[in-house]
């Protein structure tokens, strides 16, 4: 879609943001503390990529997004969004990006949802035929026909989020930045939003950067994930690569013929016993699933078995846990 497809959709180079926070120590005494929200973040996103940007609360995700979209000026480092300096050419960039902050509405609260779309058509000065075409497509994809004439304040969260997505995308942005687009949504809406984003990325080649707490979002949508903690990027790579790097533990779940005490198999630890079922955890570097199964079969008779991969959520938690405590500074 972009004519400048050879340049990255997004480039951050040594991006840093620090804030001065004033603490009250006493009635008059105040102390200024500088807090670094984002520290030396460097990455590129190619056009058409869909990237998950993860991190715990306060890790610096939103601050990064605000610098990318021109809301905040970096303290140090550079950012180029669609090749543009976001703060200096704010309005120019605004026409070419779409932003959804899950917690804040950009719709007109007291008016029917359809009115918000019509107003955005004027704000972004989109071509009328293109606007109508996009709107019809989004109403169908996100199943908004039943509530498009309802005032926004009467919509459910899931309905509103579909409206927010549409509002951010009606002007055909080249890059979409989504901050927690599925937070608080019911299962149906969550799926609708995910399917919609996947389609958008595949059909239109829109570049998507999304922050989320929900690792399901990342697993289903993104080929690449970045993890930020304490303002620093601590992982940047494919989702599969992340699992390969961090997810070296596997669990063999076996259903034995009879109840047994915890099995003693080389290089494994029994992490759970439930009646005839046992969970044996092992490290892929030390042994293989085949060897573990052979070891169990040699010890006792078994009825059924399966091998479990670790949940990505557990892995991310493990990554945070591995950080030294002084990483905050």
């Amino acid at each position: 879609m972009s004519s400048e497809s050879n340049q990255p959709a997004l480039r951050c180079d040594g991006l840093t943001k620090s804030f001065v926070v004033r603490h009250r120590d006493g009635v008059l005494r105040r102390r200024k503390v500088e807090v670094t929200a984002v520290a030396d973040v460097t990455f590129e996103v190619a056009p058409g990529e869909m990237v998950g940007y993860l991190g715990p609360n306060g890790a610096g995700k939103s601050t990064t997004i605000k610098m990318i979209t021109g809301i905040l000026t970096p303290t140090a480092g550079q950012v180029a969004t669609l090749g543009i300096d976001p703060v200096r050419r704010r309005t120019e960039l605004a026409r070419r990006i779409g932003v959804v902050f899950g917690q804040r509405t950009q719709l007109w609260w007291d008016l029917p949802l359809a009115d918000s779309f019509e107003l955005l058509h004027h704000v972004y000065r989109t071509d009328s035929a293109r606007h109508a075409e996009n709107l019809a497509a989004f109403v169908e994809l996100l199943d908004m026909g039943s509530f498009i004439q309802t005032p926004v304040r009467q919509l459910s969260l899931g309905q509103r989020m579909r409206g927010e997505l549409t509002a951010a995308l009606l002007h055909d942005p080249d890059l979409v930045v989504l901050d927690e687009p599925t937070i608080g949504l019911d299962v149906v809406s969550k799926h609708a939003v995910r399917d919609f984003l996947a389609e958008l990325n595949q059909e239109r080649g829109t570049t998507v950067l999304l922050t989320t707490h929900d690792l399901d979002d990342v697993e289903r949508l993104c080929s690449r994930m970045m993890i930020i903690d304490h303002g620093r990027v601590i992982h940047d790579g494919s989702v599969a690569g992340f699992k390969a790097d961090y997810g070296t533990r596997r669990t063999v779940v076996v259903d034995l013929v009879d109840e047994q005490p915890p099995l003693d198999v080389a290089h494994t630890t029994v992490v759970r016993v439930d009646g005839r079922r046992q969970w044996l955890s092992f490290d892929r570097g030390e042994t293989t699933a085949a060897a573990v199964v052979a070891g169990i079969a040699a010890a006792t008779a078994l009825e059924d078995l399966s091998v479990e991969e670790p949940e990505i959520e557990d892995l991310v938690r493990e990554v945070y846990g591995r950080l030294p405590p002084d990483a905050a500074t």
Partner: protein
Amino acid sequence: MASNLRTYRILVGARIRSDWQYRVSFFFFLVSQTVVTALDLAVILVLFQVVPSLGGWSLEQVAVLYGITTLAFGLGDLFISQVETAARSIREGTFDRYLLRPLPTVLQISASEFALRRIGRSIPAAVVLVIALSSAGVDWTPDRILLLPLTVISGTVIFGAVWVVTSAISFWAVGAQEVANTFTYGGSFAHQYPLHIYGRWVRTILGWIIPMAFVAYVPTVHLLNAANPLGIPTWMAITPPFVALASALVARAVWAAAIRNYQSTGS
């Protein structure tokens, strides 16, 4: 520019449609604004029960001054005063939305916080202005006919600029809005009376440094050929549009600095 104005009109229309859902409170507020504004005039009327003239100005002449000042203030209130919501929307985190849209921030705030009920200030002002002008014995030469609309528009811009500057200051200092109101609301009240009745300091600060003397007093001296103890030269009657332009440029620069400060501090 022209297309921005079209977008502005559409956004204001949407805002009025939203407010129309709460029309009882709309009318209540409209009436109360009209009454409160008219009360200022009642004070002037009571005053003239006691004294025959104020600084050499008759009731009709002061009423013209009241009309121009209050009308300019009312229009500034209607179109620009919304910028004072910026500090609150920064605290509530809704200000970012303005920065994500391809329109100037002041235009967006003015449109999205537009309140038609504020026209309640301008209605009594316009009525009084028409009555006072017809009974003040104005010598309607062509330059005076031209002067009147130019004065009202310039005055609106000057009040608007004061609003933008004071609202921008509250980006830095939370709570500065209360001080700022002294200049906007206080200034409009003070300038309902001839400038020369005030002491030197009030004249200097509220008249010339914050150039509210150009809203009504300076052109009105010439318009009415009224008593002129400060010796305002006739040619100064045409200065308000230039003062208005300069004020607007200053306001634009201060506002841009406030936005930059927000972008660098995030608060």
